[in-house]
């Protein structure tokens, strides 16, 4: 009984710690934006270097969606709905969620282990000694870089995914090109695109925050950094799916 109470207490305390951490990062944002080169470097790290994996996965997800969607819709004789179905699925769910999971795996782990290793090698302490705020120099730029990169990656993922659907559905399986695009245009509204953008932004904030928090608070041992990296992926994935439900419920 005591153990359960203590676990609940720990969970609440951790939630509070993450929130305070978030507030500290947010307070640094105006100052960090005055030195954009740090942020640009982190957008490069989190975004541009994730581009290949995001585009490859987007293409394959789109192609699978084309195959599966076609097979399913062909049973009702409505292959013409492939375009709208696949576009809506990519925009509203698959795009943001899969991008977020990939982002946590590719960029989140890199952030967490990088900051964790700085902790292990006492670089963060050294910065403190030199009166350089590690929040401003290390944590906040990485956080902002991730937040900027994630929605952009989501949009790229979706665009490449739709290209993949088109590749299989139209080029290979022979859905009429005009019907494919006109059905898509007929059923996709601008607000569906915004739903994808908003989800991308929220997931970007969540995944980046988890990554920098876990890295910053990692135990200063090799094992500690490994655990922090693992926790980053697990927490990001669970949080992504949880937030996905909340946002979907809010935006429907």
């Amino acid at each position: 009984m005591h153990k359960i109470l203590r676990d609940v207490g720990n969970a609440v305390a951790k939630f509070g710690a993450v929130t305070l951490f978030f507030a500290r990062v947010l307070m640094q944002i105006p100052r960090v934006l005055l030195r954009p080169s740090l942020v640009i470097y982190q957008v490069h790290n989190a975004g541009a270097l994730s581009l290949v994996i995001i585009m490859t996965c987007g293409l394959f997800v789109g192609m699978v969606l084309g195959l599966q969607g076609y097979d399913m819709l062909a049973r009702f004789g409505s292959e013409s709905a492939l375009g709208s179905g696949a576009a809506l699925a990519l925009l509203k769910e698959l795009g943001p969620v899969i991008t977020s999971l990939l982002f946590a795996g590719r960029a989140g782990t890199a952030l967490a282990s990088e900051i964790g290793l700085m902790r292990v090698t006492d670089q963060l302490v050294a910065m403190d000694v030199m009166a350089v705020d590690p929040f401003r120099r290390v944590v906040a730029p990485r956080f902002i870089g991730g937040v900027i990169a994630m929605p952009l990656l989501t949009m790229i993922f979706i665009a490449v995914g739709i290209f993949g659907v088109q590749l299989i559905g139209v080029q290979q399986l022979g859905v009429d090109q005009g019907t494919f695009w006109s059905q898509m245009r007929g059923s996709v509204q601008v607000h569906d695109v915004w739903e994808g953008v908003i989800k991308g932004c929220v997931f970007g904030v969540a995944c980046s925050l988890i990554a920098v928090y876990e890295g910053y608070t990692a135990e200063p041992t090799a094992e500690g950094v490994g655990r922090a990296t693992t926790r980053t992926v697990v927490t990001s994935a669970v949080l992504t799916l949880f937030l996905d439900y909340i946002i979907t419920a809010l935006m429907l």
Partner: protein
Amino acid sequence: MQKSHATEFVTGAFVLFGFASLFFLVTQITNKDFSVMGSGGYSLVAKFENVGSLKVGAPVSMSGVNVGRVESIVYDQNIYKAVVHMHINPQFDKIPNDSDAAIMTAGLLGGQYISVSAGGSEQYFKNGDKFVGVQQDAIVLENLINKFMANMAGKSSGESSSKSDK
């Protein structure tokens, strides 16, 4: 310095690519039509009692081949009918001007489209022409069921079907 320049370039390319994707999504796959219609071509007008769930952008087809798009659907309260403007692609310039238009449904779950069946006239449609032939409305399931029920009721009570139709 060289390295930092390369980093900035790659980052810039990435950000531009991201915004290009967003632009593609907003302009190309939503119903916000900017310049999707090919230039040229001409428009036709048809009037329907009921357009069902016909949408702007739905295909206009002849013999199952796409020849154009629905441009706008408005309700004309002077004649109590829906007025549908269609844009026909320029290469299809020999549609007889007594052709019929009908609203059909593609497949079980498919969208509705306008099917044009060619008439026998020697004159062809020009820009802004109105359909004068048969203009068949969208089939509404409830109306069909109502008719069917009325017929059934008429038969079972032994009255003439012409009375029960009313």
